[in-house]
């Protein structure tokens, strides 16, 4: 198979090995890295450590704050509201997130074939939602989903049909998924598109000489070259999904009953900390979420590295 060898040639072009040749200039190295690293420790490591510390205490109505060990964590893993929120995020991660990534990938591949008319216009149209802040996107979709202001409901009413209730308990999850899909498909598409642009031209020429068709080029050259981009987008999608807050927080006033206080774990943490003032329990959940994200991201990275190892 000539195409398979093309793929393996491409796989081996990403390693660098100049570490040993670098000079020792400790003064300059520390002067340049420490300003960032100090802010990093103060704004990221210290808060994370503080969350871990807070999570080990409990505030009682009478008697102040007392050490409670892992009590908050035990409460968290049996907290139905939290588990439902985490379950909802896992549902996003197994349905709408892969669908969004697949659509982004297909759009990037389609635009990269050069077969699409007005491709630049299409690419920019798909990318533009990324320029729209999540808050504005959610406010906007909140209007569009609306029963009287929303154009979709207006169209249904025009034909005398009963409009779908986008923010009802049964449709709120797909409605939320749609907003996130709208916000992120363009961003992921651009990442894939940029990676496709970096494929050396001569690979296509070699493939053409070998008589490969578009599908073979996509399968044996383009998809292997997209592996690092896929790792990046999957990792960001995992982190992003567990951070979901803006969308449920902003849709809550429109649909308090179907969203509730714990639609996403982050919304729950916010409500625990700033509505119920239970900082210790909120810190435990925040710390637990960070751990879950780290574990899933690590699993994603290992899966990719394992696949890479078996391919080369």
């Amino acid at each position, binding site marked *: 198979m000539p195409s398979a060898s093309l793929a393996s040639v491409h796989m081996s072009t990403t390693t660098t090995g100049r570490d040993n040749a*670098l*000079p*020792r200039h400790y003064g*300059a*190295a520390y*002067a*340049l*890295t420490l300003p*960032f*690293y100090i*802010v*990093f420790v*103060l*704004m*990221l*490591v210290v*808060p*994370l450590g503080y*969350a871990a510390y807070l999570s080990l205490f409990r505030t009682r109505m009478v008697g102040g704050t007392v050490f409670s060990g892992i009590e908050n964590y035990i409460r968290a893993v049996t907290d139905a509201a939290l588990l439902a929120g985490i379950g909802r995020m896992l549902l996003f991660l197994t349905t709408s997130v892969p669908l969004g990534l697949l659509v982004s990938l297909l*759009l990037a591949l*389609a635009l990269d074939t*050069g077969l*699409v*008319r007005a*491709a630049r216009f*299409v690419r920019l149209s798909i*990318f*533009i*939602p990324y*320029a*729209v*802040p999540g808050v*504005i996107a959610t406010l906007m979709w909140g209007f569009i989903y609306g029963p*009287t*202001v929303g154009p979709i409901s207006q169209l249904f009413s025009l034909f005398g049909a009963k409009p779908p209730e986008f923010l009802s308990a049964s449709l709120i999850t797909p409605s939320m998924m749609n907003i996130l899909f709208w916000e992120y498909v363009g961003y992921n598409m*651009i990442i894939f598109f940029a*990676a496709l642009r*970096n494929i050396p*031209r001569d690979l296509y020429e070699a493939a053409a000489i070998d008589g490969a068709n*578009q599908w073979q*080029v996509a399968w044996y050259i383009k998809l292997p070259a997209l592996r*690092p*981009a896929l*790792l*990046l*987008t999957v*990792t960001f999608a995992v982190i992003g999904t*567990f*951070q979901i*807050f803006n969308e449920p*927080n902003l849709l809550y*006033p429109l649909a308090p009953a179907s969203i509730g206080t714990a639609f996403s774990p*982050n919304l729950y943490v916010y409500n625990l*900390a700033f509505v119920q003032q239970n*900082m210790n329990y909120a810190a435990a959940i*925040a710390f637990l979420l*960070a751990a879950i*994200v*780290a574990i899933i991201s*690590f699993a994603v990275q290992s899966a990719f590295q394992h696949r890479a190892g078996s391919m080369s």
Partner: protein
Amino acid sequence: MTALDSVSAVNGRRSNVLSIALWVVALYFLLPLVWLAVASTKSNADLFSTFGYAFGRTFAFFDNVVNVFTWSRGDYGRWLLNTLIYALVSAVGAAALTTAAGYAFAMYRFPGDRFMFNSLLAAIMVPTTALAIPTYLLFAGVGMTNTPFAIILPSLVSPFAVYLMRIFAADAVSPTLLEAARIDGASEMRIFFQIGLPLLGPGIVTVFLFTLVATWNNYFLPLIMLSDDSLYPVTVGLAQWRAASMGGGSTTDALYANVVTGSFLSVVPLIVAFLFLQRYWVSGLSAGSVKE
């Protein structure tokens, strides 16, 4: 558009089926924004009584703009200015810190470098919202909540930007060039400022833009940190208007049109900026996704 798209672009073939399918997809992404643009030209009454994609009985865009900027002694203008200040200061600060660090991680080996860099990589996985509560409590402890610092300081730290800059510096700055400058007797700092920085230009712009957008879009952090209306960024301000518009009654009614027009006005400069600065996104994203 270059003709170097791929195999088929060489002979200029186009596919009608694929083109139409992608135009339909493009419509899905554009139509909500078209609705927002049309809605910003309508009076509050027309917003509720006319079709979303048709213009209203009155062209109220300029009335709406005036309303947005004069509501409650000009809150909206202050929110835009706050957003601009938070975003610019954070982006300049983050670009400076991460450029220096990324360059040093790429160019030098020093005791602790591996530990420092690996701790940054691990931190990319930490959801920033998980940090919000402890950060809030720490800032409250030193009396810095409800100040611009509470928004700017946490926005300065972008481990991913350091990772990007390191990759970028390793590609853009050649060690032989630095060696030549050393032989000429230049100090390491002078080499960084006079040789490194100019070569890192595109990478710096990318990090600057990423931080600018991240801070511009920030909602969670200002929502918990700020209690004073006059310090709000536009995201929190608009959300507050929207919450107030749900109250009902004649005074809150006008807020509906304000939220729509305010949203529209705040995204127009972003969309324009994105279209002009598009190539930096593509180059920055490809640096992060092509290398591992």
